[in-house]
């Protein structure tokens, strides 16, 4: 900028630091609570420096859950969450990338109809068709299965759009050259389109992994067995009700375990994350 206003810069830093602190405060308290004993955590006011129970609390929830609330161990829940997140991300990308390929690179009857069908799913979030979808899943014997957690969520209008937009920017000469060289559609897809789509796939993957990991309503509906809980559902089940009867130190340790994997994905893959977010929503 052409001007020098040290006070304005100073104010900007103050506001940003304030913002960062307020945003980070719940995380800090969560971490502290996860290192305390039960008695320390229900003492008012709770102390804001780390205690020495960290290893004990985390080991306890990973292997045996809480004592007063749900006794389900968190380690298998983390595994379920991971399977669900990977399944949703890979599933969405896989079926979207091939349907976008069909819609852009082929002319066939019903092409536009199929495209609109995929588009309309945007307008039917799980929240507006809770019970009928549950019934379908139950009729198909998908309750309490990993497939049941994943399959109903893998249709993706946004991913299909993103790949379609991207394919439309690829020069026609590439497809032409591939055809002259005798490559069929499958070969062209595999050897040309897929390698070109790498960055889009990475960006989408980050967004969809987080989306899958953080699902709440669907797993809440279709998991009834403890061994099928995802970690986000598991935390909810640990709250025994009443402020002082819940073991907040253990709940907060579980909360840390539930938010760390997706938070690490965001921070470590920030470049892909930002790209994915900005492009899928436009």
């Amino acid at each position, binding site marked *: 900028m052409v001007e020098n206003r040290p006070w304005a810069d100073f104010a900007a830093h103050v506001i940003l630091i304030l913002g960062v602190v307020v945003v980070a405060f719940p995380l800090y308290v969560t971490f502290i609570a996860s290192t305390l004993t039960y008695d320390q955590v229900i003492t008012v006011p709770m102390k804001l420096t780390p205690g020495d129970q960290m290893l004990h609390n985390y080991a306890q929830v990973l292997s045996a859950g809480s004592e007063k609330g749900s006794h389900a161990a968190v380690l298998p829940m983390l595994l379920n969450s991971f399977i669900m997140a990977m399944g949703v991300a890979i599933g969405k990308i896989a079926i979207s990338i091939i349907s976008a390929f069909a819609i852009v690179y082929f002319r066939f009857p019903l092409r536009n109809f199929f495209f609109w069908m995929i588009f309309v799913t945007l307008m039917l979030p799980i929240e*507006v*068709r809770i019970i009928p979808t549950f019934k379908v899943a139950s009729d198909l014997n998908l309750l309490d299965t990993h497939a049941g957690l994943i399959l109903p969520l893998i249709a993706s209008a946004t991913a299909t759009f993103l790949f379609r937009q991207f394919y439309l920017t690829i020069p026609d000469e590439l497809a032409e050259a591939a055809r002259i060289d005798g490559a069929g559609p499958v070969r062209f897809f595999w050897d040309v389109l897929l390698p070109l789509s790498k960055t889009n796939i990475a960006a989408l993957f980050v967004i969809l992994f987080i989306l899958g990991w953080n699902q*709440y309503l669907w797993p809440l509906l279709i998991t009834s067995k403890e061994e099928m809980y995802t970690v986000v559902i598991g935390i909810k089940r640990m709250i025994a009700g009443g402020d002082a009867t819940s073991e907040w130190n253990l709940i907060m340790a579980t909360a840390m375990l539930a938010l760390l994997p997706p938070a690490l994905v965001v921070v470590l893959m920030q470049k892909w994350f930002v790209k994915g977010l900005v492009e899928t929503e436009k």
Partner: protein
Amino acid sequence: MEKRVVFQSPWLPYALVAPQIAVTVVFFFWPAAQAVYWAFLVQDPFGQSSQFVWFQNFTDLLRSSNYLESFKVTAFFSVLVAGSGISISLLLAVMAERVVRGALIYKTLLIWPYAVAPAVAGILWAFLFAPSIGIVSYWLRLAGVDWNWNIKGDQAMLLVVIAATWKQISYNVLFFIAGLQSIPRSLLEAAAIDGATPFRRFWTIVFPLLSPTTFFLLVINIVYAFFDTFGVIDATTQGGPAGATQILVYKVYNDGVKAADLGGSAAQSVILMIIVISLTVVQFRFVEKKVQY
């Protein structure tokens, strides 16, 4: 836009769209159609038989004060979440654009809450604000506030608004930063040379040029408040106390899953569908046009 060069195959394109179409039919269209069908039925209490009742479920809903209350709660909630989320994020994004040193660090420290599940966000804030043991409740009591969101409806609303907004700030900040970066530097520099203060430059140049981003975020935030905050509500207030935070989505779940009122819940689903469809149409029509002054 269409491709000039295409491949020929009588069956391959169908095979390629088949998985996606199968999922949309089985898990989207069929259930949605059933929700619409059920919305016109009334089941007897034992679930044995059902009767076609035309619009009775809808008229019952519109006459139920409970449902109208839930509509009001949802409107209030989404206005608060969208309004506070957008204004706080805009402030932070403008400041982050201004500073040269540390901009990337600030950005990283602001975006991570995007990764937190709404239900977990709810639990974190519920712990801070827990009436008897929460640290923030303790400070509030020191300041003379009688804090107990288990009993007081407006405090429960404040809690879910804070939790929902907190989670969404990162998203808004990222879009505002992207929007700010697309504003030509030359415009701002010219205004600065002419003596416009940063404050004035913001209101006369930056804010108008950001209006497409702001409008886009407004729609996205309203959709978020309507649908994605289910986890926040379920993990904290569960719609209470006395329905003070019972947003429409939560009521569909409560009536359908917990109270097993199939017809009434399906009718609510249909109303929600109409809301999503109109929001999506607004988003696509107006975002394309790029709102401008």
